[in-house]
């Protein structure tokens, strides 16, 4: 049982977790940096404690300050949100050390899955396909050339403990291996303190498909369908949906089976996501596990009717999943548009103070997750994500219409947002026909766009 949850994060996800805590009758504690003092959720939570300076290293990444806040508030559980320390084994251990329950997978699991090769090895053992390549770290250039001999060039050299798209480099020919191998090792040492490298083949025309799952402490694992996240820019997702337009019922069953086997193989407990790549020829390959609540979880909630954040908290408290895989039915279609504080077109960051907001009408068909209000500051120190607009309807076509209508009613004054980019994507023929891939935006942006068409409006009819 847990009673009082400290939310170790900032922005929209804090409000999301607060809502789930409210639904479950749990008490709440928010934390904030100097840059977020006075944010809406710090007033909505029952308590709010300062962590430190604006710099995330001094606040949201500051283990000592976070442990201090747990002790001071006597919180008996910590929800880490996403980003920051949400997948950090040392933080999970520190939380447990402070006598609170970690709302996430056990620290031992977090530590093990940091290694991509460990995950690839588990997958191979439980019979889940991985992208062809090595399942162990390669120590020398000769080892790489050895493995590459049975692969098709181009190949990728990747960091075993990398992240955020860093330290992934393509090699076209064997002669280039040595130079790239050394470069990737250097990036690994500098950015992640670990130079370990492994090899993968390049998958052509990849689509990014991921499976949401819940695993309780009693050995039950249930998958909540897949999400397609193929519309990205520099590894930043922009539009996500569930179900994927290219996954058949039979493939969904296959992916569910894969994700379940992987979760069991890893000894996973909590909510998580198994990421897969789908090749142009329709094969699925396991990529990695995301051991946290994901930004795009609402689309899965809309199509399954299950509240993933409530389940995270209930599982952490020892509850047993009350439904089985057979009970999970995907209904209709849901799409999420991420709104970033960025200038459309240039993607230049746009921090600032919000001078006006007009929200779309929410309800059965539209949900807006955010922590915005007039007068609120969007600081320059953190992720640019400021809101998510999520639609649901019986068909994909209608869900697109709902989302486009919602986004065109969503205006923010005081800073630039990526809402126009979302509208442009939704109105494109390629998106409507479901022709998605990770290079989608580059193609769309190759044409000239008149962004003035999308100037924010506070009132209907305002010119």
């Amino acid at each position, binding site marked *: 049982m847990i009673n009082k949850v400290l939310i170790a994060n900032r922005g929209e996800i804090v409000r999301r977790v607060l809502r789930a805590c409210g639904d479950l009758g749990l008490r709440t504690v928010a934390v904030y940096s100097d840059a977020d003092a006075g944010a809406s959720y710090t007033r909505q939570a029952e308590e709010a404690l300062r962590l430190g300076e604006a710099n995330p*290293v001094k606040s949201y990444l500051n283990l000592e300050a976070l442990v201090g806040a747990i002790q001071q508030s006597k919180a008996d559980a910590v929800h880490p949100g996403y980003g920051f320390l949400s997948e950090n084994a040392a933080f999970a251990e520190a939380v447990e050390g402070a006598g609170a329950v970690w709302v996430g997978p056990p620290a031992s699991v977090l530590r093990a899955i940091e290694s991509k090769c460990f995950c690839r090895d588990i997958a191979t053992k439980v019979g889940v396909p991985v992208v062809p390549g090595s399942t162990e770290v390669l120590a020398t250039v000769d080892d790489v050339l050895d493995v590459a001999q049975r692969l098709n060039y181009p190949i990728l050299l990747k960091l075993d403990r990398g992240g955020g798209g860093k330290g992934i480099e393509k090699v076209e020919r064997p002669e280039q291996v040595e130079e790239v191998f050394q470069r990737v090792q250097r990036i690994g040492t500098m950015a992640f303190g670990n130079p370990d490298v492994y090899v993968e083949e390049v998958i052509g025309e990849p689509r990014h498909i991921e499976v949401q799952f819940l695993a309780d402490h009693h050995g039950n694992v249930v998958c909540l369908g897949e999400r397609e996240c193929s519309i990205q820019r520099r590894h930043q997702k922009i539009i996500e949906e569930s179900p994927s337009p290219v996954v058949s019922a039979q493939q969904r069953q296959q992916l569910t089976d894969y994700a379940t086997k992987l979760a069991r193989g890893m000894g996973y407990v909590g909510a998580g996501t198994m990421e897969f790549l789908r090749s142009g020829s329709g094969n699925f390959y396991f990529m990695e596990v995301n051991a946290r609540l994901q930004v795009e979880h609402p689309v899965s909630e809309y199509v399954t009717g299950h509240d993933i954040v409530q389940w995270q908290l209930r599982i952490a408290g020892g509850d047993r999943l009350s439904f089985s895989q057979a009970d999970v039915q995907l209904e209709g279609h849901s799409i999420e548009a991420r709104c970033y504080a960025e200038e459309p077109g240039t*993607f*230049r*960051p746009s*921090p600032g103070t919000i001078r006006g907001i007009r929200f779309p009408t929410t309800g059965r068909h539209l949900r807006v997750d955010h922590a915005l209000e007039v007068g609120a500051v969007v600081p*320059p*120190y*953190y*992720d640019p994500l400021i809101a998510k607009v999520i639609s649901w309807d019986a068909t994909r076509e209608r869900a697109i219409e709902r989302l486009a209508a919602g986004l065109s009613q969503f205006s923010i004054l005081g800073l630039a947002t990526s809402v126009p980019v979302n509208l442009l994507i939704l109105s494109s023929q390629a998106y409507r026909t479901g022709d998605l891939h990770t290079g989608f935006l580059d193609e769309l942006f190759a044409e000239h766009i008149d962004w003035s068409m999308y100037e924010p409006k506070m009132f209907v009819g305002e010119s």
Partner: protein
Amino acid sequence: MDATITAHMPGLVARVVVDEGDQVVRGQEVAVINCMKAELSVESNVDGKVKEILVKEWDEMEVGSPMLVVESA
């Protein structure tokens, strides 16, 4: 003549890429600001010699915060 190079965007100083005494030219990157996880280049607006570096990694910048002084030729 001394020219002060200032931050054109708010954020945290990611790094200063020149040393005091270095010769720089107009348009050359002298520092990088991390704004909302994006790395933005700060360029010198004059030719000259770096006289003084006023910031260090992780310092908080606002638009117009002084970052370094260049003694123009």
